Structure formats: C-alpha cells, structure tokens
C-alpha cells in the first residue's frame, strides 16, 4: 500500500445556525484505500463529505485533496473526483445517455459517445440508453449514478450510502464493483455506509464519527483485532461449558442465549484453546462462529 495522502481533513467544523453539525473531524485517506466512513445518523458524515466536495463551506478546519487546498484548487481537485451523495439525481425528462453527456461535459475531460455507451453497458444499463430516466427504478438510477461517477475516470471516488434502497443482488454488485475498482485500477474509494458488514467486508481503513467528532481512525483489521473476539458456540452440554469457562478461562465473559447456544467474549488467541478444552472435557461443539466484529466494535465506540 502506498502511503500517499489523497485526503487530509483537519479539525473540520460546521454550524448550521445554532446547530453544530460537525465539531472536530480529522482523518487521512491514503492512495488505494477503500476508506470506511462510519457513524450513526446525524453524526456529521454527510456534512463532512459535502464539505470535501465543496457543496458546504466549513466554518473551520482544513481540507486537502491530492495534496492541495480545496479552497484554492477546487476545479483542479474536483476534476479527479467522482461522487454519489446520498442518492444520484438526474434530469427525469432526459435519457440516460443525455444525462451522462451533460455531466461528462462539465467533468473536465472529453468523453465520447462510445465511452458513454460502454459505461452504460458496464453498469448493466445497455439497451436503456435512450430511455428517459423518469421511468427508471431506484436501482437503475443508482447504477446510472455509478456510471456518472466513473465516466471521467476519477482517481478518487466518494460514495455516500451507495447501497441504500438496493436489493441484495444490487448490494453485492456494488460491493464487487468497489473491490474491482481498487484491485484493477487502484482507485481510492471513500465509502460512507450504515451497512457495517459492507465496511467490514471491503474497507481496509476507516474512521468512526459520532456527534460531529472523529472518535477513532485506523486500519480496519488492526482496530478489530485489538479487541476481544465474540464467538457463538453451539454445544450439547451447557453446564459443563459454563464450568470450563469459569474455571479455565477466567478472563472471558459470556452470555447464555439458550440451552445450546452461548456467546463468549474472549481474546482471539484463546479461541483454539477454548475449543480444545471443551472437547477434552467431553463437550460436543457443534458450531463455533465469530459474531460480526465491527458491529460490536462500533456499538462499543458509540456507547462509550
């Protein structure tokens, strides 16, 4: 991973009247990162992203993209950025290809009709080129939004809730697309999402924002590995299992879900030993699966 800083946000603050939407947000995104942008509703994610795209003028703080100040080099910076903010909106009375042509014309790069057709094909809208966008479903608009984002071949892609309203197949397609952009074209992607599993699956770095402040930032694996792991066990003898945990694994905490299932909060390196000890004590372990780590991590951070 190269460590060239693509985005550097420092002490960003924005008020809307008396409401402090962003108090103090700082984070750094490196080239080639798929950067997860996490936070509960109203945390200040969208305001931060809008500030980064010059839609909102911050009251305080600095935003640098590609090593340049956003205020001073706005147009140069934005020519290298593709984005979807919340939902892609298009001219309903124009066709898909005319919509793309309109946004391509002001994207800072010359885009041919053939490239527009290829991009529509790439996002699975081939054959709908001349259909008016007014008749498109939400999923189709989302695909068109992705096409609009990628058409001028930006180096940085900002996706704010890109999977909202998509069906499971659409979510998988967007996820695969992001992974392809990273692996094949080494694009830098910022992904803001409520879908924690999405971030966990595809992001390598992340920041968590709460109440207008960045709480924690870092490598996803490192952040999650530093925490205790939660494993869900399905066993045939709950009494023996609890005894083993109490006597042999004092540092672990647990919660019995039902007669056969128990959730154990334990250090990651102790998991194989736990399994081995249970088997040695005659407990049949029918299943042992890790629970969503990011979900727990996120909740801990937010609640703290």
């Amino acid at each position: 991973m190269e460590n060239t800083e693509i985005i550097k946000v420092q002490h960003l603050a924005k008020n809307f009247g008396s409401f402090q939407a962003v108090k103090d947000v700082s984070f750094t995104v490196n080239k080639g990162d798929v950067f997860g942008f996490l936070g509960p509703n109203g945390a200040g994610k969208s305001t931060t992203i809008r500030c980064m795209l010059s839609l909102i003028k911050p009251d305080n703080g600095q935003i640098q993209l590609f090593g340049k100040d956003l205020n001073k080099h706005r147009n140069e910076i934005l020519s290298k950025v593709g984005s979807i903010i919340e939902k892609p909106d298009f001219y309903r009375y124009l066709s898909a290809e005319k919509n793309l042509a309109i946004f391509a014309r002001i994207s800072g790069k010359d885009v041919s009709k053939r490239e527009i057709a290829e991009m529509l094909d790439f996002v699975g809208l081939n054959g709908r080129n001349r259909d008016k966008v007014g008749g498109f479903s939400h999923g189709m608009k989302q695909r068109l939004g992705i096409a609009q984002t990628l058409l001028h071949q930006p180096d940085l892609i900002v996706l704010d809730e890109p999977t909202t309203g998509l069906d499971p197949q659409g979510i998988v397609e967007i996820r695969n697309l992001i992974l392809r952009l990273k692996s094949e074209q080494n694009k830098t992607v910022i992904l803001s999402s409520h879908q924690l599993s999405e971030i966990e699956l595809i992001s390598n770095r992340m920041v968590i924002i709460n109440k207008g402040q960045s709480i924690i930032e870092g490598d996803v694996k490192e952040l999650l590995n530093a925490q205790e792991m939660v494993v869900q066990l399905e066993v045939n003898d709950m009494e023996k299992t609890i005894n083993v945990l109490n006597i042999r694994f004092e540092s672990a905490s647990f919660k019995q879900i039902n007669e056969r299932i128990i959730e154990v909060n334990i250090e990651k390196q102790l998991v194989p030993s736990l399994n081995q000890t249970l088997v040695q004590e005659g407990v049949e372990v029918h299943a042992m699966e890790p629970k969503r780590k990011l979900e727990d991590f996120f909740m801990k951070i937010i609640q703290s």
Partner: protein
Amino acid sequence: MLLKNTYNEFIKILAKPRSYLGIGALTLLVLLILFAMKADGKSFISFVTASFEQTLSFNGNILNGNLIAFIILQMLIVHIPLLVSLVTGDLISGEAAMGTIRMMATKPISRTQIVLSKFIAGAVYTFILTLWLGFLALIVGKWMFGTGDLIVLNSDGLVILKEQDILWRYGLSFGVAYLALLTISTLSICLSAFAENSIGPIVSTMSIIILFTIMDVSVFDSIKPFLFTTHMASWRSFFEDPVPWTTIRNSVSILVIHNIVLVLIAVYKFNKKDITS
C-alpha cells in the same frame, strides 16, 4: 466550461415540457386576438375612433397589421412575464428541488459559471419568445390584415405614423421590450438562487411585478422612476412623434442596471450557498 454548461442549459430547456408551454400559450393568445380582430375588429376600431369622427375622417385600411401588432404588444406585455418566469424561475431552484444542482456543484465548474450559464440560457429563451411574439404579431398580423399607416392613441392624443416610418420603430420597440422581459428573466433567476422549489421564484416574480405596478400612490413617487416596472412599457415611446430619445435612454439605462445588479446578487448568493438538498 461556461460555454459547455450553457450548451447543457439549452439541452435542458429544449427537453423541458414547460418551455413549450410558454411558447404554446403565447401562440394561442396571439392567434385568439388575431381571429377575434378578424371577426369583430371593425366594430372595435369604430368604438375607439367614434369620439374623433366629428373632427376627423378616417380613410383607408385602419385595421391593418401594424395596428394589430401594436394592440397585441399592448395586451400581452402583462402576460409574457409569467411565461418567461415559468421557465427562468425554475433554472436554479428546479435543479435544487430535483437534486441535480448537487451533482453539478461537485463538478469542476465554478458556481459563478453555473449561474452565468443559466442567465445566458434564460436570456436566449426570452429572446426566442420575444422573436416569436414579433413574428406572430407583425408578420402573421400583416399577412392576415395587410399593411397601412398606424394610428396610435396615447396620452398626448392621436398619433398617425406613415407606413414607411413604422418598421424601424417596431425593430427598436421589440429591442426595448426584450430588455424589459430580460429583466423579468434575470429577476426570476436571481430569486431562484434563493429558493429550493420552482414555484416560489415564479410566484415571487409575479408578485413583485404586481406590487411595483400598483404602487401608484404619491408616497412612492420618489422611488417609482427607479423601478423596472415603470419602464416595462417604454417600447411604446417609439410610437410617439417625435420619439422621446432621452426618456428611452433613461429607461434602457435603468433596465440595464437592474439586470447587472440582479446577476451580481444571484452570483453572490449562489457562491455563498450551502448545498444541502
């Protein structure tokens, strides 16, 4: 980038049904007046000239294309602002309501260029509307009613203009009428920069026109000469004899100043605006 986005604006205006609504409504109104005048124009003229018939005798084709064009301009100058603002009042706020302004503002085009391209597109649309009005009123009017001298009744009395002395007056009067309509267009785009829906600027534009027009009380006498509405009918001055050039120059200056100030306000507001839609 300004030219590219202006081209985009033309594409949008051409594709929007409401753009044709204005032109369609104008065509219908003018055709209605033309057919009404064809059917009952003579009695209308007799009614107007009746008070002069004891001292004057009218010969020839009084109800001609030149008079019809004058009547049409006179009648429609109140309605056309609505048709203009219907399209121009939607140019920024309509995009804010649709969410597309957010998409545009994340592109490498300055906000000033976005606003200016909308002003240019609005100005061209207004020009086409004025040109179409001129064609319907003057060309179709002459085709239906023939040509002849123009008799105009104004505050100083009856003015009779020779047929060969009329065309240049129409050319210039359409120019000034266009400038007046351009001010409406600029006003509605300016209001559009403050709004998040398209109805607000259209209603506000019409309200301002109505308010400024009915402010006909002595308290407002000092500011009235500086209001654009006072100069909206300046095109009529070209049909006076002699033409009051100083008055016309004054009107043109005030309309031009209005346009410049309104553009500057819109550019300032749009540049300062947080796009949260």
